């Protein structure tokens, strides 16, 4: 920063000016498509009836203020508090266990020497990303059902069968494993792209020092993609409240509500048949605040600790 300031003032301004010009289309875009519609968030504090005014915007003004009514309504429900905890638990499982998986996969894929084989593996691993949860849910049910192959195998070994979809302790793991299976391959793409950016000179230097491939992976590749990993982690924390609505809705059932019901599915159930824009907005706003706090603080943490961050 200091270095650039020491340069001639004219060059700096010129250089910056054209940079700001480049930003204009993007800024206009978020202004129009994101900031402008944000007035809509006030309906989280109103008893919004879309037909209350001459048009939906006018209806926002016409609707009555209710303050934090929707949050209070939710928090007094024990079922909601349980869903809140489940959301955090499932999300944290998916982050703590699920986040490193694509990194490890990317590092190992990178070690495959046969180029053709490597390409095929990459393509095959990301196939499940294109299946909807409806299809994936049915697949896991057929494998893990009481009459499925896994239970048949367990029973043939003399164990008792496991009701994967009806056991409240096992069910979160079913969610985790199916999510890993579906998305891990796809999530390697960013890391594989980052690995291609590692300078070959670093590898050559390591080779000269007599490093094995494993050592190169650990001492060269991993540090080189560290900033990408950090950035992905901060972004991932931003979606902590999204524990997987589509997935849970397809896979859960009333017997595993105690550990499988998340905020989104709970709000979906109580909102069935009711046209309540305000409730949805209130929950969305709550999720946004939680995510925002996490992203801001993790970014600050990374900047202080490692000197690198998103901003």
């Amino acid at each position, binding site marked *: *920063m200091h270095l*650039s300031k020491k340069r001639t003032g004219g060059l*700096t301004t010129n250089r*910056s000016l*054209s*940079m*700001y010009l480049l*930003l204009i*289309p*993007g800024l206009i*875009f*978020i202004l*129009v*498509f*994101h900031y*402008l*519609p*944000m007035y*809509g*968030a006030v*309906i989280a504090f109103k008893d919004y009836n879309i037909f209350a005014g001459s048009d*939906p915007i006018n209806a926002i003004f016409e609707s009555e203020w209710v303050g934090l009514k929707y949050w209070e309504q939710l928090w007094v429900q024990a079922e909601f508090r349980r869903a809140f905890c489940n959301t955090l638990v499932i999300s944290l499982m998916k982050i703590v266990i699920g986040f490193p998986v694509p990194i490890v996969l990317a590092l190992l894929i990178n*070690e495959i020497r046969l180029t053709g*084989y490597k*390409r*095929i*593996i990459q*393509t*095959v691993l*990301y196939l*499940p990303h*294109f*299946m*909807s949860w409806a299809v994936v849910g049915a*697949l896991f049910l057929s494998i893990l059902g009481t009459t499925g192959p896994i239970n048949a195998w367990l029973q043939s070994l003399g164990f008792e069968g496991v009701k994967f979809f009806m056991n409240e302790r096992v069910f979160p793991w079913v969610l985790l494993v199916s999510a890993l299976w579906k998305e891990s391959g796809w999530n390697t*793409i*960013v890391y594989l*792209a*980052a690995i*291609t*950016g*590692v*300078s*070959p*000179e670093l590898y*050559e230097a390591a*080779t000269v020092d007599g490093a*094995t*491939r494993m050592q190169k992976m650990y001492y060269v590749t991993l540090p080189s993609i560290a*900033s990408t990993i950090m*950035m992905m982690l901060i*972004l991932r924390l*931003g979606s902590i409240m999204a524990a997987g609505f589509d997935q849970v809705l397809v896979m859960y059932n009333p017997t595993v509500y105690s550990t499988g019901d998340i905020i989104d599915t709970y709000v979906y159930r109580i909102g069935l048949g009711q046209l309540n*824009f305000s409730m*949805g907005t209130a929950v*969305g706003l709550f999720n*946004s605040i939680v995510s*925002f706090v996490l992203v801001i603080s993790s970014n600050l943490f990374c900047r202080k600790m490692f000197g690198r961050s*998103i*901003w």
Partner: protein
Amino acid sequence: MKQKISYQERVFQTVNALVFLALGLTTLLPFVNLLAKSFSSESAVLAGRVGLWPEGFQLGTYQYVLTEPQFRQSFVNSILVTLCGTALAMVLTCMVAYPLSRGWLRGRRLLILLFVFVMLFNGGMVPTYLLINGMHMLNTYWALILPSAFSVYNMILLKNFFEELPESVEESARLDGAGNMTILLKIILPMSLPAIATIGLFYAVGYWNNYMGGVLYITDPQYKPLQQYLYELVTESQRIQEGMITGDYNMDRDSMNATPDAIRAATIMLSSVPIMLVYPFLQKYFVKGLVIGSVKG
């Protein structure tokens, strides 16, 4: 790199290859099963007798799906929207990511925060709908393209890639009198092909899989995107299937139009294969050494 491969490394290579073979099979087999179903007779699919090879082979399912007017129309819509949308989104994203990747830009942090904020907060469905409605874009391709023509998430990824590039090349170009645009087009972009390919893939897949755009902004079936068509086809048949067992549905309205499972399988195949073909095509940009090589050359 012509050193002798040690025994240890050979073991590692073999084990590694085998592990991925196993992993690859777990993700490939379900797809093969879906493919086999799409070529199988309805009875075989219903009874769950289809494994990895079609039972009662027939092509009628594909013939049916491919002549279905709504499928064809939606297919064309999604291709059009994906191509135009990805192109537009890439231009916008590069224009934002490049300035924000330069550490010396004044107000950079504030600007990034301005973008990150909209990644986490939104005004909800009502105002966005009103905006699109106010711009007279309901029931147009624009409604499917514009709202997702810029993703902050992708921009941050791209910005991160740009930050990783060695600064020396850029500095020397600058000393030669190159401006920002020249540097972006002639140096940064060619050096970031893997990143561009990645982000391009994310946008393309995002557009292809976009289903909410149709739900929120389209009522004219002529503009219905493929994913919405597919989702509704699957929902409809599940609802009818469910209703047949619980009795909780109006038979008269649905008149037994449950979509056979084989048709669903064929539709899923046809809708996912085009976008899956994009990745192998992009893989040639993922070759190591390309980054430096392109600059040197």
